[in-house]
């Protein structure tokens, strides 16, 4: 495990004849792999990428993101997804929408969408109610990883719906607002906690939540 800063050269993995797939945070300059983002180097088989702690989202094709509608322009909705620019979604791309039957979205509504050119909703669309908040991008990626224990463990204690966008926006919905607050606190607190201590953390926060709950 080593920390790389922008401009550092990465030594190619030992097997030089195998193709290397370069991921996020690395650029090829003069046949040399150079890091362009600060972070930890990760390798898996023939893939290399930099694990970066960042709050700002850079759109990548195929990412599933959560966006906030900020306006309408002709046939398009302007959506804020945490990137440098607003993105646009055509209203016909929504599930069940036709030229006549437009989705009724207002400024401030949130949608779950995919960054691509395809015209399919595939179950994505508006998110109703609940609560939206932001975390760092790598925490969102960690939550989405199949080996991550945070959500399964939380699910043992609480009943809730969750949607995680690759842009670091997370939407949660539970029956009571104090449950939402408890889940929010678990997700926020788990960012700097190793995978091994997740169970303890969640159990601890849940106990605290119950304690307050029974008092009131």
């Amino acid at each position, binding site marked *: 495990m080593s920390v790389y800063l922008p401009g550092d050269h990465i030594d190619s993995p030992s097997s030089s004849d195998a193709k290397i797939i370069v991921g996020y945070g690395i650029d090829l300059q003069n046949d040399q792999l150079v890091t362009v983002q600060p972070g930890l180097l990760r390798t*898996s088989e023939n893939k290399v990428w930099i694990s970066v702690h960042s709050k700002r989202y850079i759109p990548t094709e195929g990412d599933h993101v959560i966006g906030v509608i900020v306006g309408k322009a002709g046939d398009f909705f302007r959506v804020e997804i945490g990137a440098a620019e607003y993105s646009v979604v055509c209203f016909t791309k929504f599930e069940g929408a036709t030229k006549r039957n437009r989705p009724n979205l*207002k400024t401030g509504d949130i949608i779950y969408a995919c960054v691509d050119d395809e015209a399919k909703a595939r179950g994505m669309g508006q998110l109703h109610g609940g609560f939206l908040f932001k975390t760092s991008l790598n925490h969102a990626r960690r939550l989405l990883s199949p080996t991550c*224990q945070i959500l399964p463990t939380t699910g043992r204690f609480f009943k809730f719906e969750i949607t995680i966008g690759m842009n670091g926006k997370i939407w949660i919905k539970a029956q009571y*607002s*104090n449950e939402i607050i408890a889940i929010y*606190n678990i997700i926020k607190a788990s960012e*700097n906690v190793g*995978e091994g201590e997740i169970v303890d953390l969640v159990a601890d926060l849940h106990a605290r939540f119950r304690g307050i709950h029974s008092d009131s």
Partner: protein
Amino acid sequence: MSADGADGPKGVPLNELGIEQLSQLQKNIEQELAFFQESANTLKVLMARNDKSIFALADLKVATSNHQALIPLSESMYVRAEIADPSKQLVEIGTGYFVELDREKAKAVFERKKENIFKQMETVEKILTDKRRTRAILSEAFQAKVQSQIAAMGPNTALRSSQMRTDPLSTCELQFFKETIQQGQRLEGRGREEFREAKLVVGAECGTAVCTIGDTKVMCAVSAEICEPSSGRPQKGVINIEVDLSPMANPAHEHDRLGQKGMELTRLLELVIRDSRCVDVESLCIRNGKEVWKLRVDVRILDEDGSVLDCACLAAVTALQHFRRPNVTLEPHHTIIHSEWEKAMVPLNIYHMPICVTFGFLRDGNVMLVDPSDKETQCVSGSLVIACNKRREICALHQSTNFVLTTTMMNHCVKLAMLRAESLSELVQEIIRNDSRQRSAYCKPEGFAISIPKKLLNCGSRQPQILNPPKPLIAGPVDDTAAHSSTFTVENSLREDAVKLEEIDEDDVIATQLEAIQKNVQQVEVDTKSSAKPNNRKREVEEVDELLDGLDDLDEGDVTTLEPKETSDDDDGMDLLKAKKKKI
């Protein structure tokens, strides 16, 4: 004149007047009132003077000729003089004319004057009470107008503030915050009147501090240079406050461009730190009118999550407390600035520490939120900043957006702010005391290094933290060592036997890995020689066979045109094609 002033508000119904007209009227009335007040005052002075003259006449009755008296030339200077004829006086009858009158006549003149003044005073008093009444009515009408206008504007204000941001507030967030705040719950698990924890760190260098309140983070650095004072204040040092909103804190910010928010922050900091006179600027003077110290307070917003002013102010106050300026020696024609090692640095003279506290208000000032976070700031309809020190003095009070606060609410806010100021002042003093103790013991101060969360550093190197995507299935020989290392990480760390993995003797692991590598290398070699190529060949032959079978149905010409394409791809393919043709 009095008739003019009274007619204005009586002729037209007050309710129909706009706010601007009302304020203009109010101004007029104020002016008239001031004028009449002044004339009443002068009349009073005249009356007193007249009375004095009457007393003097009475005194003169006993005087004989050649009587000696002290004649005042000024308030406190007299001349000894003899009165030639006490029965006659020179009486001023106005505009510099004097008349010689005997005693009885003079007395009559003064009595007449007194009556005159008294009458005038009566009329002026009457006008004054009239004007005061109109002023009261007007201000009442004005207040009512303003309140109704605010009520009409109310719901829009929150919307306007959220539209200006690049990070928009979604309706679900707004709904959620409104609901939870009504219930008295907040995201961090604190109540409506609970503050977030403030953390302070002073840097290794003098005059630097980092303050965090919740997620808000501000760094402040104080530096000093010698400059010429302004001609208006030749004996006073200068304090400049520079605010920089880093784009790191909020994507809406731009470097070197403050915008409305940054300007407001700068002005408020100036108000709190410079205008509350917490720093003794007189002690910053080196040479009267020629050289003074100019303090530059650089405030850098590193992260933004509400209550930025509170955090910035706390950081600035701490940095000022922590700052040491170089010592100077005055020579007749020049000034010597001593380095740190020649003469001890001099701390600033600080009278008091102003601490800012932000309050957010919902529902037209009925619900109060202490220390609102960034999202809460977007939800509230207005905010109030109270700056006070631990001596319970209010240094500044600033209210953003228009709403009317009740006195009880205001008093409550001030009380909370004072409690907060007391606890934070103690924190600052403790930090500064610890730092100076360390420095006097020649310990190297730790500086900002301690502010990096140790968890964050450890966490990165922890094995179970590594997240690998599910391993794709690859046909053919797989490097066994790579597979081995990834099983470690994919392993569910929560299982009981996960711990055992770490207990395995490292030497054993290395030995087995080495063995595996050696075995693989041999296998791979064998594979490349024997199995891999023939396999490929076999597959290719099959493919080509299929292709040709399909082509058989077509004309001979088509096949020949296809040929060069195939040959360009693969030499073996060409050979095979030829072989196939021969077969045909």
